[in-house]
């Protein structure tokens, strides 16, 4: 069970190696707390290159009656850039997990914390992905 962050992934890789070394078979890997994908890959890529046009964004914001101040436009672009950076890191970690060649199951991030309903959400996600 892991998160798509550096240390948990490293520990997962180490644990699996340790278990394999003593002959304990590994079932699957569960990746927890995945965030919802909000931006498309194209947009993420443009955001990380700072290639999104400020003017276009400002025009769109004005069309829906938001005051397109520099602070707002730059803020939104900065958020997208940070998000893209985080997603890129997650992709790197996901590649490492994929390299383990084990069935992988994915669980969504539960923003409200884990309660009984949250457990159901997680259980359903696992069943839907075919985990016995």
């Amino acid at each position, binding site marked *: 069970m892991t998160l798509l962050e550096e240390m948990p992934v490293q520990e997962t890789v180490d644990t699996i190696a340790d278990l394999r070394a003593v002959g304990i078979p590994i079932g699957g890997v569960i990746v927890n707390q995945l965030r919802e994908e909000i931006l498309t890959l194209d947009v993420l890529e443009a955001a990380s290159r700072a290639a999104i046009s400020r003017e276009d*964004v400002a025009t*769109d914001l004005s069309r829906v*009656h938001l005051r397109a101040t520099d602070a*707002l436009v730059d803020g939104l672009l900065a958020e997208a850039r940070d998000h893209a950076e985080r997603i890129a890191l997650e992709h790197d970690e996901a590649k490492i997990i994929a390299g383990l060649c084990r069935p992988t199951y994915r669980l969504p991030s539960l923003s409200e914390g884990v309660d009984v309903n949250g457990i159901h959400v997680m259980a359903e996600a696992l069943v839907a992905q075919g985990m016995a």
Partner: protein
Amino acid sequence: MGSVLDIDALIGDPQTRIIVCCGAGGVGKTTTAAALGLRAAESGRRVVVLTIDPARRLAQSLGLTTLNNTPRAVEDINSTQGGSLDAMMLDMKRTFDEVVQAHATPDKAEQILANPFYQAVSSSFAGTQEYMAMEKLGQLRLEADHDPDNPRWELIVVDTPPSRSALDFLDAPKRLGSFLDGRFIRLLAAPAKVGGRVFSTGVNIVTTTLTKVLGSQMLSDVQTFVAALDTMFGGFRMRADHTYALLSDRATAFIVVAAPERDALREASFFVDRLNEEEMPLAGLVVNRVYRVSASGLSAARAVSAAEQLGDLEDTKTSSSSGGSSDVDSSGVSEHAAITQGLLRLHAVQAEIAARHQALAKRFIAGHPDMPAVEVPAASGDIHDLVGLRAVGDALAGH
């Protein structure tokens, strides 16, 4: 609401000789400890950072590639203020070995170190890591002041083990006592200690039964171990008492690190209460990784509705221009509108997380009104180099 924790005043105060970072696992304790150490060193102090279980790349950036149990200088820090930074990673087993060697005669020590039961206990016994971290702290402190006029380190920053029982070391004197004075242990050790006939009959029955359960080799290992340990018990206890005194000293400052999640904050509250109960010098709280949005003026709700409005505008436009000849133009507009919509939706999600973090952090800080506190914004990437640590240090200091 409590006051702001002034990190620069704390690390710059020559009276502060030890800083202990505690908190639940995964809240960024190690990073905080390393960042504090670096900041103190770059402001001119001679510092050593003792880490327990650093992430690999962070360890590498501190020059810690192996567990070597001795502090080594961190390269590439800014030493223009005359400071220095050493770092080390705790080797629990080796530290335990050193304690044994320091307190037993050489042949006794050899006997203990070779004992299989000892080997199991010293590398995996629950709580060993906590004790050994504190043991190492005691050693570093002694070494620091070996020459009182010219201390090797003016400040020791310690990261506590990432376990629920991170404060177990506070119980060390008591726990070591009850472990070694415990009935079970006494029974096991009895054949080596009790000579009387009446006792030995009873004890032998116990021993025989235990031998059946545990196997004779195991039992005799335990007995040898306990008998040997018994001779060093006085030394152990004295050291534990000494460490406790060191921690309660005014030259020590505890910092409780928390992350804005319910469970982590609950544990942080437990740490705060526990430290207060023991009258330990708690300097303040660090609420780490508090998510913040850059476009803070726009609420989540407003962002969602703006994204929907923008979608509606696009829909109307596409339907009115369907069949028209301005395809290139309208698809161009749609594309950037879609991007802007994405930005607004992303902002809505992030703003909600930020609001939740803010609320949790506020609540936590309000719950400990006497505690100075500081919030550290979440970084978008993992921290694994000196540049990252410097940024964390700035944030800790409120810049």
